[in-house]
């Protein structure tokens, strides 16, 4: 798995890519290190077609840890398959999800929670 970061406005956009349905697993520590404390981050899955079950769990943990440290996180670029799996196991409702980076940035920038922490 590869991670790439950039900043759009006040939001850290973390793009993930690589095979996450083979033996590779999402590195939660690495992702968490890139999320600014009490800041805003987008996790961009545009180049990830699927996460194995362990990676999904780690994603959920990352999300919870980020929330606990006052960060605002949203997911974008979910493939149909990934969205379908998240929906079926009930994980989708845990996340703020946007269709693309621009929408996600706007969502985080304009959300009341984001305003409160800004």
């Amino acid at each position, binding site marked *: 798995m590869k991670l790439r970061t950039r900043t759009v406005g006040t939001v850290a956009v973390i793009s993930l890519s690589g095979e996450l349905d083979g*033996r590779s*697993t999402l*590195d*939660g*520590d690495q992702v*968490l290190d890139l999320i600014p404390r009490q800041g805003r981050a987008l996790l961009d899955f545009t180049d990830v077609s*699927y996460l*194995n*079950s*362990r990676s*999904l*769990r*780690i994603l*959920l*943990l*990352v999300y919870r*840890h980020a929330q606990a440290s006052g960060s605002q996180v949203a997911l974008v670029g979910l493939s149909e398959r990934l969205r*379908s*799996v998240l*929906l*079926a*196991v*009930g*994980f989708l409702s*845990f996340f703020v999800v946007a269709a693309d980076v621009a929408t996600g940035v706007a969502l985080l920038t304009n959300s009341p929670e984001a305003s409160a922490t800004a």
Partner: protein
Amino acid sequence: MSRPVHVVRDRIDSFPTDEVGGFPVRPGRPFPFGATLVPGGVNFSLFSSAADALSLVLFRLGEREPFAELPFPESCRIGGVWAMTVFGLDYEHVEYGYRVQGPAQPRIGDRFDPSRVLTDPHARALSGRKVWATPPQPDDPFPHRARLTFDDFDWEGDTPVRCTHGDLVIYELHVRGYTRHPASDVTHPGTYAGLVEKIPYLKDLGVNCVELMPVFEFDEFDNDRVNPISGDRLMNYWGYSTLGFFAPKAGYAATGRYGMQRDEFKNLVKELHRAGIAVVLDVVFNHTAEGNENGPTIHFRGLDNRTYYMLTADGQYYNFSGTGNTLNCNHPIVRDYILSCLRYWASEYHVDGFRFDLAAILDRGEDGTPLKSPPLVEALSYDPLLRDCILIAEAWDAGGLYQVGTFPDYQRWSEWNGRYRDVLRRFLKGDPGTVGELATRQVGSPDLYRHRGAHASINFVTCHDGFTLADLVSYNDKHNEENGEDNRDGTDDNSSWNCGAEGPSDDPQVRSLRLRQMKNAMALLLTSQGIPMICAGDEVARTQRGNNNAYCHDGPLNWFDWSLLDENQELFRFVRACLAFRAEHPQLRSSEHPCGEDRDDVGLPDVSWHGAEAWQPDWSAENRLLAVMRSSAGPNGPDHIYLAANAHWEPQDLSLPELPGECRWHRFADTSAAAPADVSQPGAEPILADQHQITIGPRSLLILVGRPLPAPDPTALRSIR
């Protein structure tokens, strides 16, 4: 926790001590049985009373041949338990089984077979049937492999539904069949996730408990027959033949192909609980998928045949289940196995109760003799983790043991009341000599459950096994030709009546009578004391085209056709109103049987019986009219209910019992009336113009409520003045 993915190695027992087959290992922990993720490794534990040697067989996900086989060192055995912790496994991509060596002496019951790899009976997930009806690999030597699982789940504070058992209305459904039909209009048809999408429907209907037909892993291909009419392969669709007692059926999960069936099932339970709906599992502990001597060796047979199965003196299988073998439920080892399984489902999956298939087998000793105090039933009754679970017995078996009313209950168990079903059906079709017994069943079967209370009685008219309600009023005889057994399978004792034509009919009179009979059945069921159970789809007249043993059909015959909801809206509306009526009248849900006295000081006895004349019931065999009045103190004052059921083909004039004080009779339901006058919303029932006489239609039901007239509106009085 600061970071999510640490491997904690701060225990001195989290390091290997030996190497087996190239893998670092150490003697494992005997409990819990099964495979458990521990820091850095996986703990494998298995019991066999007579095995000589054991090895762990490891496969890479989906590969036919194992990549490693690790014999358990002698240092890994304590008594009959073999336990070994293996380090360095890529547990996301490993499947496993066991090879067990021991004596092969079938005449004394030992059937060890080291040529086979066995499934772990404690496996929490099984592969092999990950996607429903995907054809199995031909000649796969080990088709049902165990998977390693995570036990974590974000329950978001979920707790089991803690409601009084008497308030339950059970709705029995098949997970796949409920949303598999194209008309179901869900995102994931035929799955746990699909069922989540139907929760609003369940809420709208008014049920508060789903009883899921078997969801323990089974093999849908466990059926060799072919539909002689269509030529299609028949299936093991219902799933009453368990492979994995700790594993949810992967083929019922939209995410089964990704190994996430456990999460998907947990999410279903969580969402049902969020809607106030309890979850009861239909569990099958009377037999397993291994069948008789000619069946496959999957787990118990090759692991400890003598312990797990009831065997004759010459090592043959007793067959009290009618399926080839009988689980040896009261053997201490098997008893612990079943207990730990149910504890697991109650704690790990938050389920609220269990319905035990052919539960009379749970009462049999090792030689099949019924026990007065069966240890398993006693253990389940007093188990601390199961304390709040509802336990329901199908209190009979295929060996002729019929225990309705006599199942050892320890004040904990309820029973499918087969006698309720039978008499209600016979009354509805107009059989003579049924009024007296119907009266007893209507008030919670005190003859059967005097000391246990009315909640011991699970009342039902239909269930998965037998005719649907629509078929009960459309067929005189079963039509099971498509099951491939020349219509010999399925019961011949249906007490059904086709209302004048066998099968589908365009005759308006026949159709009208069938609809009325279905309303009659539902109204009787939902006003009876005891816990009612509805078979899913009966509320919209689902048909199985006369098939009363549809266990083998994965198709429209069994799937819930959601277009019926529009087509049969009148019946749906009626059933929904009856459920709301039940919710409004606590006396219908009371555990206490009525005694015929005015216990609540409401001016009338808690139960009284009537005929065409008030206070004059007719218990003669040729009478087909029953009227009952129930009175108690309700939440808003005195609560009086009068129910008359006329199974005669002629109408009858009834004189009504007089109500005390300012109470007046209001009509809740009259199944002889055309919709929408057939039923009212509870609380909005119209007052009867004639408070003394009423006519009940032929083959009809009438339900009245007695309540005080509303207080005069002072504003209206002023305007009159």
